[in-house]
């Protein structure tokens, strides 16, 4: 028995000591049987950038998104005060084709990684659109704050914050969501929100792990829900 225990102990020790080799090999090989059709944001860290350099690059952007990051028309999103990491990820996926947009695809194609970080940092630093007066007893408010458990609709505030101004981070021992990648929604136009939810639902926008979450969420929403939510968010 004792000799067997020694053999076992040695064998276990040998295998354990060799694990770092295997572990490195695993990470090198990426261990993904299929090429990823989406960008995994689950371990995305908050990005940094040079806002001043971003300002210098923003002239073209301002044509649609406004000089202060507030869109000139409702079919464009407001960028002012948006999460820098979210903006960076959008530019990156627009550039690599995982997010498809006829205009933005071309705009992002010319940007370097540093450009994208700088632009994201710049728009993030701008003051967001002032809060509005959303209807506190509307169907949109109901869905945004409480969801609809009977139909599997989760509350939007879980990731986007109770006022749509970003997630409310909590501490936990469990694996954490990539808070910095979740966009701020408040004040986005109803037209833009409706289109975004439609794209998520149809799968047209599915190039990130976050988009895959939104695919499941948007599919639980009916047209009336989307309209109510869009109106509510636009007036937040």
């Amino acid at each position, binding site marked *: *028995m004792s000799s*067997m225990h020694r053999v*076992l102990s040695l*064998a*276990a020790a040998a*295998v*354990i000591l060799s*694990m770092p080799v*295997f*572990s490195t*090999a*695993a*990470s090198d*090989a990426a*261990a*993904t*049987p*299929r090429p990823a059709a989406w960008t*995994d944001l*689950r*371990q995305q860290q908050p990005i940094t950038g040079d806002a001043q350099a971003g300002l210098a690059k923003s002239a073209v952007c301002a044509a649609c998104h406004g000089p202060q990051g507030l869109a000139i028309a409702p079919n464009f999103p407001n960028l002012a005060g948006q999460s820098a990491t979210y903006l960076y990820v959008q530019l990156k996926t627009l550039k690599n084709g995982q997010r498809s947009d006829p205009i933005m695809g071309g705009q992002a194609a010319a940007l370097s990684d540093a450009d994208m970080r700088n632009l994201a940092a710049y728009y993030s630093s701008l003051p967001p659109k002032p809060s509005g007066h959303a209807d506190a007893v509307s169907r949109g408010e109901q869905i945004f704050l409480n969801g609809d458990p009977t139909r599997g609709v989760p509350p939007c505030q879980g990731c986007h914050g109770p006022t749509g101004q970003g997630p409310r981070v909590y501490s936990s*021992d*469990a*694996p*954490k*969501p*990539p808070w910095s990648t979740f966009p701020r929604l408040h004040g986005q136009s109803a037209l833009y929100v409706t289109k975004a939810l439609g794209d998520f639902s149809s799968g047209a926008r599915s190039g990130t*792990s*976050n988009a*895959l*979450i939104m695919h499941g969420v948007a599919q639980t929403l009916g047209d009336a829900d989307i309209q109510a939510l869009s109106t509510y968010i636009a007036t937040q």
Partner: protein
Amino acid sequence: MLKRKPLTALLGLALGVVGPLPLLAQSDASDSQRVGNIQFGNSLDPTGWGVFATPDPAGMSWLHAGQLRTPTGMLYPYPHQIPDAAPLGAGDWTYTGLAEFGYLHLSGDRNDEFLRMYSGWNNGAALGMLALSAQNRTTGQYVDFRGSRISSQDQYYRLRAGRYGDYHIEAFYRDIPHTLSTTAYPLWNGVGSTDLTLPNGLATGSTPAQVQAAEANRPRRTLSVTRQSEGVSWEGALTRNWIGYAGVTNEKRTGDRDWGGPMYLTYFFVAPGPGGPGTPSIPGTFGGQYDTVRPVDFTTTDVNLGLRNKGGASGWLLNFTLTGSFFRDHKSTLDYAVPFAVAPGSTSVVTGGTWSLEPDNNYYNVRLEASHPLKFWRGQLSVSAAYSSMRQNDALQAPLNPLYCPSGQFLGTTGIACADWNTTAALSRQDGDARIDSGLLNLRVDFRPTAKLSWHANLRQRDENNMTRYTMYNPLTGQYGYVPENGAEPIVTGGTELFQPGSPLYQSNFAQISNIPFSYDDRKTELGGSYRINRNNTLSASYLLDHQTPHPRERTYINDQHVKLGWDTRSLGNATLRLSYEYQKRSGGPYNPDPYLAAYSPSMPGYLLPAVGYTAFTVAQMYKYDMSNLEASKLKAILTKPLGTTATFTATLYGNRLRYGADIGRQSYDTTGADVAWDWEPTAATSMSVHAGIESSRLKQGNVNDNEALTFSSPDQADMQFGGPFFPYANFWTATDNERDVDAGAHFNHVFSPRVRLDLSYDYTYSRGLNSYDYASLAAISTVYRSILTAATIGNSFPANVYRMQTLTANLNLALNRRVGMRLYGKYEFGNHADWNYAGFNTPADLIVGNRVFTELGPQPHWHALLVGAFVTVKL
């Protein structure tokens, strides 16, 4: 894609499926198959889904990386990748399919008993897996087929189809091998049939040397049983709230296995053998003892029918089930001719014996389960009631077989005529007419008055009534009792097992005259609850009173009380510690060591007590372990410690201490064990685990040899008291069974690249059993052995029994392209085995020991075997 469609369609047609399915699911245990066979797998792939078990790097959530943990701290495993589905036709159906086929080669000790115990390994082609799945995402319909074949005795096929939320049907066929011995050398011809005959040259009255010469030339056989089963089941929504289900399975067991063959008086040693003290003389006289081989030819058909309500407006949840199980034995007898005469030189005519094998029998059960929420304290009421009946009414067989005890002959010089016992006219009735009914009622309430407090109360009443009554009365002779051991015993003892009122020869015999219809009533009352003190600590406690009234038994009632205490805490950092303690105390009514007299001749009118009385049934202080007093303590601690975010350490320590209130009978039973395990899953591509466990147990019992000098010769033979003349203290002995079991293993799985996956496993199992004994004096040894044994040869233990097995398993999966891959499989198994019951059995001739005939040499002392396989995997 176009190339795949015709192949899939062809397979679908061949399998009788309209369109193929999807569900290459991770688990098979959760479905509506309600009659067994819920897990399909074999030695090549015990899980049955190994080829699909590729962890998905996407993990369990898009929301966060890494795996969450269970409430007690264990990591959830990575979910498996869902195979890519392809469109099937122009509609909404998609399908996946996979075939894995190849060749297996076994070398080394190919016939080792342990290697083949539950595996039908063969050199040749094997189907690792054939899986086809199709589903319609629009309608929710699905079809799924899965099959695997190692050999004709080791295979399974299963077809499932249905529509989610609507209905589910399933059909399966499977063969499972069970090898019992690979070193059997049965003496008889006709193994596998109901008639075992002696080989040429042997007849009743042969000498041990003659039998040994015949046995030396017997061929080796493998004794095994194959379980062939098939079944169908259905479950479907009848209305919005009512679900119906039905299933029928049929299992046929065929083969042969070791069996017995008594022929009375195997041992009678009058002097040490040629090896001196401690070796038997082995006279080879009298009928002997036989290790025969019996046929197995059973069918069990299980039928299941039920209705379930998932909660209508009334709020009741209901489940109503009817179950029937029908066992049929297609070979109801076993005849065996014997080579040794029952009594040398006598007029014995007994030349063989007959077994009555298992009778056909039926089991019926009706069960209703219901639960309803209560309007206060967030309560729940649960009720279940069941009634079952077990019945058999096979034709009874004659006590003796005319083949071996022909009419016109007599059993030795007893005067017992074969003709009086070799027909069913010797029985008091012709059929078994056996029946045991039982009823069950369980009432339970659960309450959770606050978020922190929950409690429950449970009342369970189960009554079992054995209605079988049989009197052993022979109307041909007017005698009660029977002629044991095929008539061999009366030849030696003179028929003392028969009782007959008014007959000077039989009126004072102590004989069993009827069956003993064991029955019992059992009421369990339990009260328990748990309280969460704070976020990290929960206490629980329960009390259970188990009140049993068995009859006829040594005590009229038994009270078994259990107190359980539990503490779950997370106050030790992020570790979870679960502690539980149980105290058990059993007591009961006064102990009557002989409550069965009604089944014996002294209870009969006309019984005449002999001058010396009758032999004590047992010693008065002998407490049967299920009837004796008991004090038990059971302690268990389970620690679960997360190591970072990707590893977990678990340790379990437990100990049970049982003290029975008896010197004679079971005295104590202690168990101590520990398990440790380390699991690590840093990514979906890598996982590793190491575990080790040890358990030791010690079972101690005491007994007293009766003073054989007084048997049938002194009134003291009736004295039941320990310490009296018939059971003196000097005859006391104890036996201790020490067991130690160790298991350990290491498992490693890694995806080196999308094309290369390796699984490695090492498993170790060790078991050691030692039976030791002690005795007050040599008087504790039976007089049959006393003449050939001394204290030195007796010693204090039997040799240790040891079983050790080590297995190395490797699986290397190589993807050649998106559709075709290879699987290389290797398994090296080695071990050693020692069992003193087989000591000295090296060749078939060794199996004849005096007048004892054994059949198998036993498992190999050392074995090793290498199994390799190469498979091609094709995604259809």
